[in-house]
């Protein structure tokens, strides 16, 4: 491996900006770190270069641990967004800077400089001053300068950010050629997905300091695992769908029949379906579709963009069918679907604004997220509204690009009475309450994947504690934790708790700790920290939560009756947000 990052964490004032990032990059690989501004990608690059010290984790370059080496001893080349050329030196002096520092002989310097200038196609520019060059030429000089001392690793920090489209493309090609010719391991940081596609052997996508997913561009595009990646890498319509025994249903009928798949725990699940605009088809009537029928819609917007036509189509039956659709680039939950067609399709079936069309789906991808949508639940409409406007919930929903619906359940207070109520889907959200434990049990039994207990005006957590009370709950808890942690900027800590400090229980406790970490890593690509506690579970968790107010707890359980027995006090706490996840044990529970 050329570059190995192991659990890199960097904090600014306690908040992690780079959060447990681990990456292995192979020899000669072109790796692109993609993410929106503020996602921590540049900080990570600076950490690799040695310009920023990390708080945790290790960095190795070609098997050499460089975590504590200074930038000048790491042997890397770095290209800055603003070029960072030395304006008072000529192009030649800029390129020879690293060689001069190393006291290389003048004749050798000249030879190397000539070689580099040829590489970046700037022959004969030796005696110009940087300000006499265009932006694209300046960046070429910067690339040549960064390569002068033959670094083992080339790092590029948004190198095309300040250039116009045409030059950008030209320079992109140059950099790709140079990289191939030298076979140098390269990391490029960008927020431009087109750039990532054009250059990358592999892409790693960062958001909120976390590395969400990495892989080959085509794999990430076809099968994203998270909502963020689905919408950030290309355009996508995210649609809430039902995963039932008959298949994936958007509305009443299955759009995609899943052969023999059975739903977990034998009940229907709400899932998020990713519909790429180019995988949607429009036709005059359902019978004309060559793909699976999705619903009838009305064309609301038409946009001609060169090779393609972009349409926005409103699903007519959205309300009756139940699912709420979120358009690719709006946070508002609207039943607007984005569709792109080729010029050929446009000519064979021209449409106008306001026209009614049938929508079909050629291909859809289902995200296996347990946090599909939120339902704010309370005994009165005003309270439900208040929950819906809680800042933490608003933040989560907008980052997850999902909806928050409200539901009034007078039965919530006297939850013990199992009043016949419509089943829940997704996550139920209630305000914290000393008697919350009964409401939690009731909501879980009604089918909620998880219950989120929100204190009033709770801040966004910077640390999330994870614990499950029994082994069967592990999988679901980790899945929920992984899904949540991709959308909050917080450190994840699995807390393993040993019943007593006796020697006998220790090996088991240690094993569960290690299992937890490796499962999180392997299954969900989520890096978590592990900590060990002793004593009574409820007491220990309460003690840890009391230490800091900006912590959140994710508690997994398979046998709900334990909650009333031992956790009434913990669930009745009103200081921290709590997320209770239920995975029924071996015997399917009765409705």
């Amino acid at each position, binding site marked *: 491996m050329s570059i190995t990052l192991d659990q890199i964490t960097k904090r600014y004032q306690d908040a992690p900006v780079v959060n447990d990032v681990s990456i292995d990059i192979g020899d000669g690989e072109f790796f692109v770190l993609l993410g929106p501004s503020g996602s921590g990608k540049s900080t990570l690059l600076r950490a690799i*270069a*040695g*310009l920023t010290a990390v708080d945790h984790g290790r960095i190795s370059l070609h098997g050499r641990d460089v975590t504590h080496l*200074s*930038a*000048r001893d*790491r042997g*890397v*080349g*770095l290209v*800055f967004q*603003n070029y*960072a050329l*030395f*304006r*008072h030196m000529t192009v030649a002096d800029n390129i020879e*800077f*690293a060689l001069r*520092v*190393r006291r290389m002989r003048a004749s050798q310097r000249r030879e190397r400089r000539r070689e580099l200038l040829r590489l970046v196609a700037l022959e004969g520019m030796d005696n110009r*001053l*940087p*300000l*006499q060059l265009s932006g694209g030429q300046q960046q070429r000089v910067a690339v040549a*300068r*960064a390569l*002068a*001392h033959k670094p083992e690793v080339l790092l590029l920090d948004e190198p095309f950010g300040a250039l116009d489209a045409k030059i950008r493309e030209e320079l992109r090609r140059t950099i790709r050629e140079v990289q191939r010719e030298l076979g140098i391991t390269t990391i490029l940081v960008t927020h431009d997905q087109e750039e990532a596609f054009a250059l990358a052997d592999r892409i790693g996508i960062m958001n909120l300091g976390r590395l969400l997913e990495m892989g080959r561009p085509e794999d990430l595009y076809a099968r994203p695992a998270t909502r963020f990646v689905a919408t950030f890498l290309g355009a996508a319509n995210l649609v809430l769908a039902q995963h039932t025994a008959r298949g994936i249903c958007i509305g009443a009928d299955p759009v995609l029949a899943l052969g023999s798949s059975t739903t977990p725990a034998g009940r229907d699940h709400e899932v998020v379906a990713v519909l790429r605009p180019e995988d949607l088809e429009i036709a005059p009537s359902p019978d004309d579709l060559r793909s699976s029928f999705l619903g009838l819609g009305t064309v609301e917007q038409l946009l001609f963009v060169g090779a393609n036509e972009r349409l926005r189509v409103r699903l007519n039956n959205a309300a009756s069918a139940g699912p709420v659709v979120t358009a690719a680039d709006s946070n508002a939950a609207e039943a607007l679907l984005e569709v792109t067609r080729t010029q050929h399709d446009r000519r064979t079936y021209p449409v106008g604004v306001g026209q009614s069309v049938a929508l079909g789906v050629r291909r859809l991808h289902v995200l296996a997220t347990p946090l599909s949508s939120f339902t704010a639940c309370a005994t009165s409409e005003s309270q439900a509204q208040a929950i819906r406007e809680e800042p933490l919930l608003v933040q989560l929903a907008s980052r997850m690009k999902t909806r928050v619906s409200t539901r009034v359940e007078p039965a919530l207070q006297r939850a013990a009475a199992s009043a016949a109520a419509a089943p829940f889907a997704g996550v139920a959200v209630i305000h914290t309450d000393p008697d919350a434990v009964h409401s939690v049990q009731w909501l879980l039994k009604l089918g909620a994947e998880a219950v989120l207990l929100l204190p009033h005006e709770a801040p966004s957590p910077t640390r999330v504690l994870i614990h499950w009370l029994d082994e069967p709950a592990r999988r679901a808890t980790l899945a929920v934790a992984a899904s949540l942690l991709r959308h909050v900027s917080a450190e994840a800590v699995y807390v393993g708790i040993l019943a007593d400090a006796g020697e006998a229980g220790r090996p088991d406790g240690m094993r569960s700790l290690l299992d937890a970490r490796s499962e999180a890593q392997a299954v969900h690509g989520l890096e978590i920290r592990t900590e060990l506690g002793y004593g009574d579970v409820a007491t220990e968790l309460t003690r840890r939560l009391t230490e800091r107010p900006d912590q959140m707890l994710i508690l997994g359980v398979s046998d709900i009756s334990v909650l009333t027995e031992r956790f009434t006090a913990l669930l009745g706490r009103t200081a921290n947000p709590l997320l209770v996840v239920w995975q029924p044990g071996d015997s399917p529970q009765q409705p």
Partner: protein
Amino acid sequence: MAATSSGGKWTFTQASVLPGFGLTFGFTTFFLSAIVLIPLAALISMAASSNWHEFVHTVASDRALASYRLSFGASLLAATINLVFGFILAWTLVRYDFPGRKLIDALIDLPFALPTAVSGIALTTVFAQNGWLGRYLELAGIKVAYTWIGVTIALTLIGMPFMVRTVQPALAEVQRDLEDAAEILGANRFYVFWRIILPIVVPAMLTGFALAFARGVGEYGSVIFIAGNLPFKTEITPLLIVIRLDEFDYHGAAALGCVMLSISFLGLWAINFLQSWGRRRFTATAR
């Protein structure tokens, strides 16, 4: 509107799209004449109205020569001290954040605002033989008050803000990226400072130096208290001019003034020349 006549001999290049060139140029000429050129011309004509022999006698007397040496020597020394320590001060203020930074930043300007006589009295209090610092320096065998050292200290104090205030913005403009880039390329801190930072701030440092020097040459108030004003030893030229005036020797005063004027002008002109050379060398403006 610009003073351009196509067939005329005078052509002004107009660099700005804003109108009003004629008005502003006229105002500039008038203002400069009324405030600077006419008084200076009066000084020269006054000096010229005395006869040559008398002029040389006044200007080249031993006492006058000693005063030039002190005035220009001490100013040069003070400006040099400020070049080094003013730079360090500016560096600290720009690069570090520490409690009290704002306060120190404000303190820098005090010598601007203080009546110079007040600084003179304050310095004398501190550095006199029985002053707070002076008594210990005395023990070490260093006499500050009433020697050229005192004069230099007073001029350093007066010139310091000029240096700091010109270097500060230039330092703030040095991008951190440049230093990072140099470090990654293998340069150590000393090298980065010498080859990257210094070349960028040198023009500003020269400006600061020129301002501090000019201010030092013209300084009167703060120096006369601490200098002791012994002829041939600690008498600065501005004081000698005042003495001549007190003796109603207007021609002599004007003659001395002329000498100061020409030396100062030559000095500033030289620094200006250095600056423009530096600008050409270090920051290309061509695009």
